[in-house]
């Protein structure tokens, strides 16, 4: 489509055009026009959300209004500026289990996610933020992230189940019968242990492979991501030792406990199991987000971004490449391990088939859809895709079938849809839905990422 000259363009093109070829037109606007256009776009977003479900639209409208009020908060109450939006979000999130069933139906999307789905969304948010450190910050494409998730899950399974029935170790486990054999350690300790162990695995994988650049690294990580589940699958007889119970998986795994309340059983009608899992995944997500943001602004995080933008220049500026990349790997792996351990305890089982390449690509598409390098975007992408995977797609298929009388079996199209999301995001908006400004600039200016053919690296 050829672009009309300014004098022939109808007035509404200024804003509708923003959906089409946004950046060029956005730059052409002056400040006042940008403000107007932003207002219109926000109004459109709110209206769309209101049509889908009024609570969603209302929430977003309140958040936007809170942000709009920011400049009017007097300076002596400056702390409120930073507190208003997080407080609203925290209240909405913490009370979610009380009202989610009375929210009614969303148009097209069906019911609001139930509390179990919310827990899974939280776990995937942690994993996606972990992967975002590797892919988004440091720019190392990791196609085997599922290996870290698997490592965390199996660590949890080893330390909190009857898998090693010969041992009898129990430290702080809640709700495990006194005669149950095996190792039973408090899940809260295991989360940390799993994270550290997985970080160690990340370093071990990283040390030999991080010398490679770009796509070679992607393939090597993919290889590790395929090997680890196969080891888990064949691990029922590794030189006579039953390590992973093979394809039958390890189940049941202990639930976490808090003040003597076992999460699987819950306590009364108020502290039900899913609610407890949900309330404790929230602080985990919060800690992850906090660490991720602080790491990004730290010396290490700036080194990651420097490496992502131009490895050769970063090395020339004295950034130690190997050490920095290995730290990115270890940090990303840490969060993957924590999320994997919590997830395993939530599902109370771990099977080798949970850890195939599809999961790696699924988490990667969360990071890509949300916006590589931006924690908020990644959170949104992860929550949205995890919800789609868990409930959304089935609901959408159901409502489509009802509206149009078709007989679509959505699970058959699931991975095609994720593939299409990846491809369309890369083609239309490679920086993701909610990009970081820096990453956006990289994608649109075209980073000099091509290898320097005359700069040979001496490895021998």
């Amino acid at each position, binding site marked *: 489509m050829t672009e009309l000259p300014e004098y022939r363009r109808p007035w509404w093109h200024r804003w509708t055009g923003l959906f089409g070829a946004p950046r060029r037109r956005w730059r052409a606007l002056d400040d006042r026009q940008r403000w107007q256009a932003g207002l219109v776009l926000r109004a459109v977003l709110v209206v769309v959300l209101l049509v889908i479900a009024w609570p969603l639209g209302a929430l977003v409208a309140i958040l936007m209004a809170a942000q709009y009020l920011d400049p009017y908060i007097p300076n002596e109450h400056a702390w409120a500026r930073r507190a208003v939006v997080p407080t609203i979000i925290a209240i909405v999130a913490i009370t979610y289990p009380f009202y989610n069933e009375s929210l009614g139906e969303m148009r097209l999307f069906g019911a609001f996610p139930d509390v179990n789905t919310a827990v899974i969304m939280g776990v995937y948010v942690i994993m996606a933020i972990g992967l975002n450190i590797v892919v988004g910050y440091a720019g190392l*494409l990791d196609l085997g992230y599922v290996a870290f998730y698997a490592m965390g899950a199996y660590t949890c399974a080893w330390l909190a189940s009857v898998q090693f029935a010969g041992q009898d170790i129990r430290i702080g486990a809640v709700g495990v019968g006194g005669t149950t054999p095996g190792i039973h350690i408090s899940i809260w300790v295991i989360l940390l242990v799993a994270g550290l162990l997985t970080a160690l695995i990340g370093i071990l994988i990283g040390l030999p492979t991080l010398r490679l650049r770009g796509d070679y690294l992607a393939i090597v990580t993919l290889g590790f991501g395929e090997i680890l589940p196969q080891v888990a699958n064949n691990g029922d007889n590794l030189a006579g030792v039953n390590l992973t119970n093979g394809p039958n998986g390890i189940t049941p795994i202990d639930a976490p406990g808090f003040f003597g309340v076992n999460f699987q059983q819950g306590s009364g009608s108020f502290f039900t199991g899913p609610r407890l899992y949900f309330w404790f995944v929230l602080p985990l997500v919060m800690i992850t987000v906090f660490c991720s943001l602080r790491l990004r602004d730290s010396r290490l995080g700036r080194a990651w971004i420097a490496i992502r933008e131009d490895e050769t220049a970063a090395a020339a500026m004295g950034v130690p490449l190997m050490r920095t990349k290995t730290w990115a790997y270890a940090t990303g792996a840490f969060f993957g391990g924590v999320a994997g351990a919590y997830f395993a305890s939530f599902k109370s089982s771990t099977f080798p088939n949970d850890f195939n390449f599809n999961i790696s690509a699924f988490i990667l598409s969360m990071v890509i859809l949300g916006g590589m390098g931006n924690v908020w975007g990644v959170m949104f992408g992860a929550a949205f895709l995890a919800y789609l995977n868990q409930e959304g797609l089935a609901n959408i298929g159901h409502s489509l079938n009802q509206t149009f009388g078709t007989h679509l079996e959505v699970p058959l199209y699931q991975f095609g849809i994720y593939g299409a999301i990846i491809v369309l995001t890369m083609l239309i908006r490679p920086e993701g839905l909610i990009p970081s400004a820096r990453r956006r600039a990289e994608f649109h200016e075209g980073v000099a990422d091509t290898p320097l053919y005359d700069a040979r690296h001496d490895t021998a």
Partner: protein
Amino acid sequence: MATDARRENISWIQGVRRAGIAPAFGFLLVALLLLWLAVNLVQTPSDFVSVALEGITLGLVYGLIALGYSLVYGILELINFAHGDVFMLGSWISFSFAANRIGLDAGSSGFTVIWGLGLTLLVAMVFCGLLNVTIERLAYRPLRNAPRLAPLITAIGMSFILQDVGLNRLGPAPVSVPNILPTGAVFTIGGHEYRWSSLIVALTTFPILFLLMWLVQKTRQGKAMRATAQDQEAAAMMGINVNRTISFTFLIAGSLAGVAGLLYALYSTNIRYDQGFQLGLIAFTAAVLGGIGNLPGAVLGAILIGLIQQFNEGLSWHAPSSQWTQSIVFAILILILVFRPEGLLGERTPEGG
């Protein structure tokens, strides 16, 4: 002079230290592998020979897929993740065309089989070639100037889409293909038959390989491909239509995947919607083993990988058996990439670090 003398007098341990631990480790691994093969050869010679023949046959089929990876990597430096799934769809179209449209099955007469399979081969080649060209046009060409990871990520997405198409066409369970080729034994070694179907599959690959060599090395189009692979801008300045050359490369790669799809369906008589992912990675390993971008290397690597796979699954003395095949292949991939990223026949590239 004194320094020279000292340099000559270094002890062997210093020599090892200077060369690094990597080559020593590599030599040790290769030596262990050869020892294992030798013991197996001595213990069960007939097993060994028949397994080796099967391995070469399988390797030739892998080679056709590996060539596709190598061609595309050579020209775009892109790991075309979707290639394995193009191969899978090649299997699907050959199966549905040969078995459902023409109606070939185990009982078909010799003449029907020959023209039927010839026609199927043509259909599979055209279908996969055009599919590959379409993918390039839609998904990779718009990203030609994007950061390098962008097309790679897109390729993963394309692979998912194609796999989903396969899932919808083939269903989640493996589909068994009728024994269209004759299954009698060509010859028998110590109780193991080498079947006619294997021989035909192996023999079909050779003319295709030679045709490809001729195309790349002797024709004008091949020259254009090599020029584009070396330097796209310079090639464009010399009057080569870079976009058309890249499309042509994808066409060739796709039709090779089509051939491989048909041959694999005939050889294994079993196709699955996710075979593209698994065999695609095995073939990619083969391409890396031989030196990616290097065509004879891809075939050599594929034969080696086929041999390793069959030895692993067929030998009796301390063979890890088929449940470890994938791990072994990926371990080879990782070791090659870490210790010798240029592959067996390739040249050293900056990617190798």
